[in-house]
């Protein structure tokens, strides 16, 4: 083929070439149609390796091509970035040709510019991957925000430091603090930061389980241990083997079980209900209580020996009202999360609402803040939550919020009766649904159940309104 046709073909296909002899020294080349070599400073003669340093590692491929064992070899979409940062894509084809005049084999390297074709593929993939990364971000951010300890105040920093330290030891940890201070979250974080993080984290709220079931929940049972034990079941202690067991509201654990738990803590051994076989479990215990356990010991509601055993590494978690400006940080994060969950456009708080939140001594705990914000986000139509959306009166303590004009009878009343009446009314209003009833009273389900139990309200049978 006349040389000028060949030149035109190479140009049309944006292709450069180089030919090498059997000792891999250059014989001929034309780099004009490709930017791939634009900055290369090659003399008149050069070796294959100087021309293509990227072929390091392909020595035997080159040999096989020259020996005729391999017909050709393709390296696709090699990126090339010029000094100005412009990205182009090139395909390199290695093949052998026979030079009849010399009776010798030549290595032929063709470099074609495939930028046009590849750029389209790039933009399609780019979009696909961006969407997939964003989706993963959203998921993990949601999880992360739900599960992380937010705040920059001194008390929160201290808690964080505490988590870091105690996570490295196997010691039992006692977390105290009012309800809604994040005891369960802190327990989870301790577990996650510990060397046991891949082992199970098992949690149970002692106030939420009836006393009669608590023992079998914790220790498990054998088939036939009691009337309904149709098969054997592992207890939570066994489930948590090699991991962490978190007992929330440990102050509510019945005295009889306190003794049994203590024995387990001291021996790491236990028996399932209805079994004579002693089993062993290696469990790190994390416990929490919102009542002062020391006081409970004095009132003989909590065993002193167990208290001593638990009261080794302890922390008192700070309530929201002590966290200063962290309330804004928390509110911001909640709004962000809620907006995702509720598919709303809300992105934050107006400065005036922020100011109000700061100056208004927030009376509730974090959960109550979240609930108030949830209501607000649902009703908010704009991009920022404003004072009107978060009707602050709705979160005032009961005495200030419309119930202000309650009257106490002349001969007084039992406050417990009032609380019981509210619990019953909420259950009644919710048709016996405890989750909904708890929401009417702005309580967590755990707390609600705890109070039902405390006042011996039977949840299954909401009393009819008389």
């Amino acid at each position: 083929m006349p040389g000028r046709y060949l030149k035109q073909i190479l140009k049309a296909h944006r292709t450069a070439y180089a030919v090498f002899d059997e000792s891999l020294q250059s014989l001929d080349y034309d780099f004009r149609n490709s930017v791939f070599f634009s900055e290369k400073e090659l003399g008149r003669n050069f070796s294959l390796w100087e021309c293509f340093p990227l072929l390091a590692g392909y020595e035997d491929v080159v040999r096989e091509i020259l020996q005729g064992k391999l017909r050709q070899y393709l390296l696709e979409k090699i990126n090339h970035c010029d000094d100005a940062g412009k990205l182009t894509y090139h395909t390199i084809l290695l093949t052998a040709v026979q030079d009849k005049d010399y009776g010798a084999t030549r290595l032929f390297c063709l470099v074609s510019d495939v930028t046009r074709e590849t750029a389209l593929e790039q933009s399609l993939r780019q979009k696909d991957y961006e969407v997939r990364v964003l989706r993963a971000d959203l998921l993990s951010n949601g999880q992360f925000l739900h599960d992380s300890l937010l705040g920059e105040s001194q008390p929160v920093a201290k808690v964080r430091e505490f988590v870091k330290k105690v996570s490295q030891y196997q010691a039992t940890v006692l977390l105290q603090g009012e309800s809604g201070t994040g005891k369960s979250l802190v327990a989870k974080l301790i577990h996650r930061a510990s060397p046991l993080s891949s082992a199970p984290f098992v949690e149970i709220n002692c106030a939420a389980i009836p006393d009669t079931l608590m023992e079998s929940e914790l220790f498990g049972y054998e088939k036939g241990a009691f009337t309904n034990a149709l098969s054997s079941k592992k207890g939570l202690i066994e489930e948590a083997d090699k991991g962490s067991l978190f007992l929330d509201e440990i102050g509510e654990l019945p005295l009889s079980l306190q003794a049994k738990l203590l024995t387990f803590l001291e021996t790491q051994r236990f028996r399932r209900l209805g079994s004579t076989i002693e089993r062993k479990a290696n469990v790190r215990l994390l416990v929490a209580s919102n009542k002062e356990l020391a006081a409970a010991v004095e009132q003989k509601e909590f065993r002193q020996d167990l208290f001593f055993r638990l009261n080794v590494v302890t922390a008192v978690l700070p309530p929201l009202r002590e966290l200063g400006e962290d309330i804004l940080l928390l509110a911001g994060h909640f709004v962000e999360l809620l907006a995702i969950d509720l598919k709303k456009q809300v992105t934050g708080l107006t400065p005036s609402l922020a100011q109000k939140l700061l100056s208004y001594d927030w009376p509730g705990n974090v959960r109550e803040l979240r609930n108030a914000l949830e209501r607000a986000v649902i009703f908010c139509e704009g991009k920022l939550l404003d004072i009107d959306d978060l009707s602050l009166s709705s979160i005032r303590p009961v005495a200030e919020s419309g119930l202000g004009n309650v009257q106490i009878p002349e001969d007084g009343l039992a406050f417990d009766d009032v609380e019981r009446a509210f619990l019953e009314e909420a259950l009644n209003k919710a048709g016996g649904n405890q989750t909904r009833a708890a929401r009417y009273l702005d309580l967590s389900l755990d707390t609600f159940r705890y109070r039902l139990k405390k006042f011996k309200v039977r949840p299954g049978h909401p009393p009819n309104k008389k």
Partner: protein
Amino acid sequence: MNKPAITLSKKICMLGTFSVGKTSLVRRFVHGLFDDRYLSTIGVQIYEKQLPSIPGRRAENLKLICWDLANIEKLTPAIKNYFRGASAAIVVFDLTRPATFDVKDIHLDAFKQVNPLAGLVFAGNKIDLLPDVSSPPSELADLAGSHSAPLLFTSAKSGAGVAEMFAALGQLLLR
């Protein structure tokens, strides 16, 4: 008189799912740069970098030919051609995206089949994004253990652990 140092060229491959930070790690190491923007790699970009010589070890200069591969959607003969002749691979995971921990997606087996003697280094990247109280996922340590590979935690963004990771790689290559 000192003998002139020989330069050894060693090819390595960056493996890992899309957007884990393969390109960012190489750019951080080779050019000392980081970009927050994401430009997904198509095909392969090849970087060269002289590794700092290890004092008192050998009079060798080690030149890395680093193949920064795109996410492998489908294992084709052309992809296997990329693997050819590699002395090692850096397998990159995004610590914030557990979905990237699946080595099946990365075609590590195919890589090992092409290069049975190649060493592996595992990199848990984006450590800067992990909250300070959470420990890196232990499943990665197990995974690295099962491939007898060292696991290093890196941030292409802050540069943390990047030099250490390439140093670990250098150790493997000179073995």
